[in-house]
């Protein structure tokens, strides 16, 4: 192919709307050739002189057709004056196919894509001929065949033949082209309209969802069977699942590290990794508690067996230390004392929090069972509202209890880490990890047990 200055890549021509029915790529080549010749020989043609048919102009073509068109138009500068913007504008959006640009001099002209012949024809049709004649100067005349030839290569724009050369075939082609372009425009319009309505619908749905969440309506996601604040529950459950996966991976890495008898310096890193990962779950639980304290308390995010032995939304620190039992031997006297003290203080803290929870429950019962119960409404609305407000305040302290329980768990783990050596801590973490995974396995087995 010759070097065309303003010619778009050939593939742009492959857009279906470019083609009259039945065209194929080979004819594009021919078209290019013509243009190339046009380019080369038309000294009077300067790109700058070409009509600006880019989308920015009056010519509001939206499809890729535009670029192609604008790049390709080597209009006779004189055409610029004749094809006034007004005329172009009257075609509306879409392709340049409807009709008929009235040339001041009375002849109809078309803006044909790469239709060198047409241009030449125009040039010849009474306008100032700036010498854009090409080798195919025979086209200068109003030869039917050449017109036809030009039309075949002129995809988007319909070449409206001059009345003089009205040819049946040509007319039919023109009509078909018009029709195709029109249909294309209609399709595009319909598509855009569809997009618009979909966008509106989406915005509506998002708004509804947000409103529903704020009202605490259960959003059916399949993750939680509880009526929670929808999003917060889903988010936590998902994050917990990811955390668990990562946890299991870290534990098996730690196990490999321990059995490989690696040095403390490296083992220390693995241990720290698991500890840091525990910090992560406490962070996630803190967020989850603020989102939905009842979901966290319910333990629905744990397996059934874990849930059964759960305390205030998680594991019992004192229990975990009892499980450690003999697995850590040999321990120094100081370590033994440290672990004993830790077990005792965590037990005491757990008891204190449990008693606080009992007090909370009792006070809630007291509030809800105040004297106005059982009586007909009259004048007790204020009482009712007051009691409800008090009850709400008490419920809010649930979050605080859950938070303290998690803090207790976290601090127990950290203190244990301080008391033990790296190797002992590694073993302890493995013990905890295995215990928890056995509980989870038990849950699965139980759920899958054969029943008769």
């Amino acid at each position, binding site marked *: 192919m010759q070097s065309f200055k303003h010619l778009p890549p050939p593939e742009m021509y492959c857009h279906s709307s470019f083609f009259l029915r039945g065209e194929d790529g080979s004819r594009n080549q021919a078209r290019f050739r013509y243009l190339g010749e046009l380019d080369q020989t038309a000294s009077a043609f300067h790109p700058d002189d070409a009509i600006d048919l880019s989308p920015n102009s009056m010519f509001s073509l939206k499809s890729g057709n535009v670029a192609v068109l604008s790049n390709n138009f080597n209009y006779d500068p004189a055409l610029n004056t004749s094809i006034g913007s007004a005329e172009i504008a009257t075609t509306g959006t879409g392709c340049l196919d409807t009709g008929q640009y009235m040339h001041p001099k009375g002849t109809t002209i078309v803006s044909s894509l790469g239709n060198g012949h047409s241009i030449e024809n125009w040039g010849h049709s009474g306008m100032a001929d700036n010498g854009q004649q090409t080798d195919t100067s025979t086209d200068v005349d109003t030869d039917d065949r050449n017109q036809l030839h030009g039309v075949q290569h002129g995809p988007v724009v319909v070449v409206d033949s001059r009345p003089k050369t009205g040819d049946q075939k040509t007319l039919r082609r023109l009509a078909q082209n018009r029709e195709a372009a029109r249909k294309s425009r209609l399709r595009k319009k319909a598509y855009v309209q569809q997009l618009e309505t979909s966008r509106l619908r989406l915005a509506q749905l998002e708004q509804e969802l947000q409103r529903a969440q704020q009202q605490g309506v259960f959003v059916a996601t399949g993750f939680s069977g509880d009526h929670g604040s929808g999003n917060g529950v889903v988010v936590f459950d998902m994050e917990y699942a990811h955390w668990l996966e990562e946890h299991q991976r870290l534990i098996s890495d730690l196990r490999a590290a321990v059995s490989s008898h690696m040095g403390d310096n490296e083992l220390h890193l693995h241990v720290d990794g698991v500890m840091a990962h525990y910090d992560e779950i406490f962070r996630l639980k803190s967020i989850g508690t603020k989102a939905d304290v009842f979901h966290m308390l319910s333990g629905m995010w744990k397996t059934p067996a874990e849930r059964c032995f759960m305390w205030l939304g998680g594991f019992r620190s004192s229990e975990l230390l009892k499980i450690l039992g003999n697995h850590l031997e040999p321990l120094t006297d100081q370590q033994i004392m*440290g672990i004993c*003290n*830790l077990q005792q*203080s*965590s037990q*005491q*803290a757990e*008891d*204190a*929090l449990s*008693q*606080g*929870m009992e*007090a*909370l429950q009792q*006070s809630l019962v007291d509030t809800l069972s105040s004297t106005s119960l059982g009586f007909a409404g009259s004048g007790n609305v204020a009482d009712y509202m007051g009691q409800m407000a008090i009850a709400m305040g*008490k419920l809010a*302290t649930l979050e*605080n*209890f859950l938070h*303290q329980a998690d*803090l*207790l768990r976290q*601090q*127990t783990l*950290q*203190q244990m880490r*301080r008391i033990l050596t790296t190797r002992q801590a590694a073993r302890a973490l493995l013990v905890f990890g295995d215990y928890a995974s056995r509980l989870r396995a038990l849950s699965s087995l139980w759920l899958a047990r054969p029943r008769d």
Partner: protein
Amino acid sequence: MYQTESSWGSYMPPRNVGDPLERIERLASENAVVIFSISTCCMCHAIKRLFCGMGVHPTVHELDEDPRGKEMEKALMRLLGSSSAVPVVFIGGKLVGAMDRVMASHINGTLVPLLKEAGALWL
């Protein structure tokens, strides 16, 4: 308006004039373990149970039963930088903190020595 003599048990006779924070500090230094509380607060109940479980007998000031309780509550909130004033624990006249700090110091083993030092615990 108030008597200088009072039979309010662990309460000092309230004074009309005085910075609430000063009053808090004064009350805190009067006993080995001093807890500022509100009678209906469940977390306060928990912290009381914690000390009792350790064999400590703290002095408790229920702010909702103190005529100057409200301003003391506000002063405590400012002191702690928290939206909840109670429970707050002082040991040996020094501020230990709210439930989280008390529990943390118990777990990391610093609470018992502190109690022994203040004379609230004997071996």
